[in-house]
């Protein structure tokens, strides 16, 4: 029988499909008019959407706010860059980035998962700051200048081959990868393990008494999120041909958090839409003022205060109503936070 969470997830899938359709339209139109810039900008937006997706997996499902997710994005990007300069193989770069991110995430996870809530946020923030600073000082990693000269690679997919320099081709490759990451995350959340994560966010203290290890669930979630960030990051040097320590800085992590809040926390697809939305408002508002951060900040605060499910929160209930079986139609959606009693608020 279909339940509420599965229904919400399906509604997200409908919106994700819509995004894919829009992307394909862009690809068709873009290639028809021979556009390069907008396709590559959209590719970049999708790559950062992957980072936002990883933030949403942590924040929206296990309830852990990471202020340093760019760390793994950066590790993925640097690993991929180093591999590509030696061997221009897409699959090797992706594999190495995944491996490296995974190893680093085990260490980071062991540190960060000792704590919860705001402390988790502060630790992840600090972790990323420290690593970024170290990278900033390592000459072999290009130090503050970063590394340029990452070749434009050909991506072999079975008998076919796509050049990363081909705007439409690479856009489609990134689209497939990011949507695959989205699908994998959605799949994960619709498994018994994923439901434990949802439970973790709803009431962490109750979870161990149901027989699940909170630490293990959080750790697996942390690793999965790091992998998503790392794989997204691995795509960046293929697109731009360089990496720089700024990719690990707080602003990169902060942008991902802003994307998630604007798009809608805990909706997965919201991270993707939020990321695209952020790119759009940045370039639109940025075209008439240098002080666009004020407007983004205001939008962000409005999102936190008044729109707990962001943009998706406006749209998804309608989609749910359209696709819901009858038995789920009348009941209240689980979107709203249940009102809580004062004693539960007190830490």
């Amino acid at each position, binding site marked *: 029988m279909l339940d509420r969470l599965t229904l919400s997830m399906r509604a997200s899938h409908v919106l994700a499909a819509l995004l894919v359709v829009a992307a394909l339209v862009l690809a068709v139109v873009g290639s028809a008019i021979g556009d390069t810039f907008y396709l590559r900008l959209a590719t970049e937006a999708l790559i950062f959407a992957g980072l936002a997706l990883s933030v949403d997996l942590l924040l929206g499902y296990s309830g852990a706010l990471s202020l340093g997710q760019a760390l793994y994005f950066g590790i993925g990007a640097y690993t991929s860059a180093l591999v590509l300069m030696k061997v221009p193989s897409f699959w090797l770069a992706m594999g190495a980035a995944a491996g490296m991110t995974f190893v680093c995430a085990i260490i980071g996870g062991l540190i960060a998962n000792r704590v919860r809530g705001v402390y988790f946020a502060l630790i992840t923030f600090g972790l990323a700051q420290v690593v970024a600073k170290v990278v900033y000082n390592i000459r072999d990693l290009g130090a503050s200048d970063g590394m340029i000269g990452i070749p434009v690679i050909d991506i072999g997919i079975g008998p076919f081959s796509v050049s990363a320099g081909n705007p439409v081709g690479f856009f489609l490759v990134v689209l497939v990868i990011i949507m695959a990451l989205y699908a994998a995350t959605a799949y994960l959340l619709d498994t018994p393990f994923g439901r434990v994560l949802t439970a973790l966010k709803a009431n962490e203290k109750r979870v161990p008494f149901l027989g699940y290890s909170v630490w293990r669930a959080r750790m697996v979630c942390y690793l999965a999120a790091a992998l998503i960030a790392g794989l997204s990051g691995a795509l960046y040097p293929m697109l731009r041909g360089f990496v720089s320590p700024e990719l690990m800085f707080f602003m990169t992590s902060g942008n991902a958090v802003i994307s998630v809040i604007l798009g809608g926390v805990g909706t997965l697809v919201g991270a993707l839409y939020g990321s695209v939305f952020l790119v759009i408002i940045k370039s639109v508002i*940025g075209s008439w003022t240098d002080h666009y951060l004020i407007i983004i900040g205001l939008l962000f605060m409005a999102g936190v205060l008044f729109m707990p499910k962001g943009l998706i929160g406006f749209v998804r209930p309608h989609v749910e109503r359209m696709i819901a079986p009858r038995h789920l139609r009348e009941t209240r959606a689980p979107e709203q936070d249940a009102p809580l009693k004062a004693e539960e608020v007190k830490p």
Partner: protein
Amino acid sequence: MKIRGYKVVLAAALAATALSGPAFAADPIKVGVVTPSTGTFAPIGQQVRWALELAAKEINAAGGIMGRPVTLIVEDEETTPAAAVQKAEKLFQVDNVDFLTGTVNSGATLAVGQLAERNKKLATTSVSFADSITADKCSPNVFRVNARAGQQSAALAAWLLKQKPKAKIYYLGPDYEMGRSTVAAFKANAEKLGAQSVGEVFAPNDSKDYTQFFGQIRAARPEVMYISVAGNDTARLLTQMQDFGLLNSLQVVGASGTITSANMGALGAAANGFATGAGYSPQIDTPENKKFVADFRAAYKVDPDLYGADSYGTLYAYKAAVEKAGSTDTDKVRAALEGLTWNTPQGPKTIRAGDHQAMQPMYVVRINNGKFDIIDKVSAEDAIGPDTCTRF
């Protein structure tokens, strides 16, 4: 940002009309400007923008480049390479600019240079001074119109050791790649000329408090201190040294980016006596420079600084090259730029064909109540150093 660009067009057009210059029939030549208006380097970006606008206005008033008006299209570098590359790509692809300049962050200059190469366009920097841009990481599509770190330290070291042979020097740099290489370059230059190094320390970027190093500095009893910090860090370091009475007995010298108009206000008297090797000072006593400074002041109420002057000169270099090539075609303009000699407020500059580095006379300037007094001059040939670019 497009709009901002058009505002410049409008201003240029108005200026042209006002001066009853020629009415343009031809398509404009589009120059892309990626320079920070947000982030740490925003104050530098301000000078870059102003200087380019001034140059564009003048060029258009005088009939443009080959009869075509110049349009600037300005984008925000945000002081990060990632943003710079994104904006540069827009300029190359959407706005279809013929030429790109303005990047400040060295990483951004390198990344944008690579993008220019892949887009078969030309990019220049008038600010970034990391040696690598025209050395081991040089690109056939990248030119540097300003003096690099090596030129600056060569000039400064020559002057310093003339003043104080066998000077005892203490070095303080920011603890990251750029800071370390700047210190290393000056140290090599100075030691070659007979200086004694009595100690060095690298402070983290964004240090709040430099006082923790003062004991070591005092104990080493140096006569000269070389610093290569920048921006807010300089303001803190020098005012704190002043508070601790360290400035009384020390000659402080440093990299050219150490003191600029952005932190001069905060430094006040603490900046007095600071000497640096630079490609420019508003005090340069030539008619070209006097006119430039006067026009700049009239338009923006402040003096141009090093970045302003170099950016101003960039547009004239491009003008000269296009006119020499008779085209805006990348390959032809590149060929014209290589070996080009043109006039700037700093005097004539020549672009060395081998590494695309501008050669220019270098000045040693000393700050005196907010003014950069010129105290020495080193010829272009003596300052430039060897060509180590091997890519073209």
